């Protein structure tokens, strides 16, 4: 078997704790908000790097987004990825999960020779978890969602993983190529290597592709390629709560609480 080629898909998201909503315009205020690689995608990247350590081969990182994502792809190179690709074009903007998974799949086709495509379980901003199965369908590959304990069986051309289900789990084996979404918290992502960081910033192999560089149907990307539309936004209704603070020692607080909760005891 030729050397293993793993592609890790990453997204850059605003840090959720810094995001504020402008309640006049109902838009997300991004000014001054720091971004980060979507934390679940760090689990995917770590899984890719760990598999490369075990089996050899190479790890390519791919993302779709604005030019500023380049900074974060260099971080992924500093962590250990061999190569990075950014799919960046104004025409990709406004994509829902159908258009996003199509665009990423076409980018992955262009990168080529892939065995395993790893994604984070979901993004911390959208949290739909729909892009990994979408990529798998566009590429006509097998899929394993919510995967942990990923094991490549190079002789068999298979990948094996455990999937957590409602209440239980299963262990499944899939032929390569396969798209797997890595369960959040499945591993501890490594820190970037300071020596690699200098290399990544100076000469790390990073390629930016526009829509013209990958074979995409202009009607199937970005806003035009997205069948879903946002029809409006509103503020979540805060339910009225009593907000009664109980005072005193822990014993007094406990007693006061129990008196108020008698109906439930």
């Amino acid at each position, binding site marked *: 078997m030729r050397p293993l080629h793993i592609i890790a898909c990453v997204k850059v998201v605003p840090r*959720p704790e810094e*995001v*504020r*909503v402008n309640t006049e315009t109902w838009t*997300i205020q991004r000014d001054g908000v720091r971004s980060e690689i979507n934390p679940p995608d760090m689990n995917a990247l770590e899984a890719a790097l760990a598999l490369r350590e075990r089996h050899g081969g190479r790890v390519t990182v791919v993302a779709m987004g604005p030019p500023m994502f380049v900074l974060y792809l260099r971080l992924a190179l500093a962590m250990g990825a061999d190569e990075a690709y950014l799919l960046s074009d104004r025409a990709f903007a406004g994509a*829902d*999960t*159908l258009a996003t*998974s199509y665009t990423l799949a076409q980018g992955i086709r262009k990168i080529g020779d892939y065995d395993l495509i790893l994604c984070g379980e*979901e993004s*911390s901003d959208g*949290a*739909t*978890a*729909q892009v990994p*199965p979408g990529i798998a*369908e566009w590429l006509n590959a097998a*899929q394993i*969602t*919510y995967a942990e304990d990923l094991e490549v069986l190079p002789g068999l051309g298979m990948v094996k993983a455990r*999937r*957590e*289900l*409602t*209440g*239980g*789990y*299963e*262990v*499944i*084996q*899939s032929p390569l190529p396969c798209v797997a979404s890595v369960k*959040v*918290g499945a591993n501890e992502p490594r820190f970037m290597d300071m020596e690699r960081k200098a290399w990544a910033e100076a000469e790390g192999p990073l390629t930016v592709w526009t829509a013209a560089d990958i074979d995409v149907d202009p009607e199937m990307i970005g806003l*035009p390629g997205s*069948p*879903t*539309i*946002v*029809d*409006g*936004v509103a*503020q*979540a209704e805060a*339910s009225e*709560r*009593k*907000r*009664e603070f*109980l005072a005193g020692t*822990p*014993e007094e*607080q*406990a*007693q006061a*609480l*129990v008196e108020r*909760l008698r109906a*439930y*005891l």
Partner: protein
Amino acid sequence: MTKSLYGAKEASTIWVYLEQAQGRLAGVSLELVGKARELTDGRGIPLVGVLLGDQVSGLAQEAIAAGADEVRVAEHPLLRQYTTDGYTKVFTELVLAGKPDILLLGATPNGRDLAGRMAVRLRTGLTADCTDLKLEEETGLLVGEVTGFGGGILAYIKCPDNRPQMATVRPGVFAVPEPDAARQCKIVSAPVTLTKDDIKVQVLEHVDGQGVDITKANVLVAAGRGCQGDLTLVNELASLLDGEVGVSRVPVDKGWASRDRMIGQTGYVTRPKLAIVCGISGAFQFSVGIEKAETIVAINTDAEAPIFEQADYCIVDDMFDVLPPLIEAVKRARGGNGGR
């Protein structure tokens, strides 16, 4: 525009995926049947439940009692266990034959796995992880409510042109309807063509869990980062109150608790009568999963924690100082209650 495989003009019914495992329907499937019944009533839209599996037709009755007008059952030995390939192939063929206008699935691990794959195969729009559903008055289009990240923003998503309009809904968002055993409806057996070659993956091992379902608990004692991995007192209080233990994301990520106990945006939406929230700051991602509780108690060392804005009773103190006397006080109160 990416065109779906059939258009709005040909589509008319609402379909609900009846997810089953080990001879039981998923609670969320019944919740969806109940909600879909509410959406269709007065509009005369037929409500169809779709059941896939091996020898599962006995489960159809439960969906009928919950409000389905018809249940289509696709049975095949290769559907005994869920696989993406097998279920996507069979379900997509059913959809192309029946052309539903709307297709609803529960946002369970397998429901999301299936929905994400089918939406692309059908070239249609999928609104994932809805917290509410409605039909637009003038157009009858499905409008899915999803929570935007950060500060409690709701977004309304629709899919005007492509069919079916797909949505997944989180477990616990809607109530399970009261079963009506007198309801009658058709059970239709659907043809299935499936061979081993259609299924790329192989299920080597399948283990059912302990069946913890925090969405059904009347009392939830929830713990977060503040429990520092020690759930002893939380467990004790929960069992004393005949409740369950729930957690925020941190204990799941740290391996202190299993994912089926996770409350919040990426976990379960719960609606207990009483929630006692210990050592959880109350970020939006968590509180969206607990806000439907009748009464919320918050225990946290940080008086500024947002959880106190969402609580009925607030205790600013360390959970490890408060829980022991609370457990004793509950025991005393129970004793005076006739020792329930």
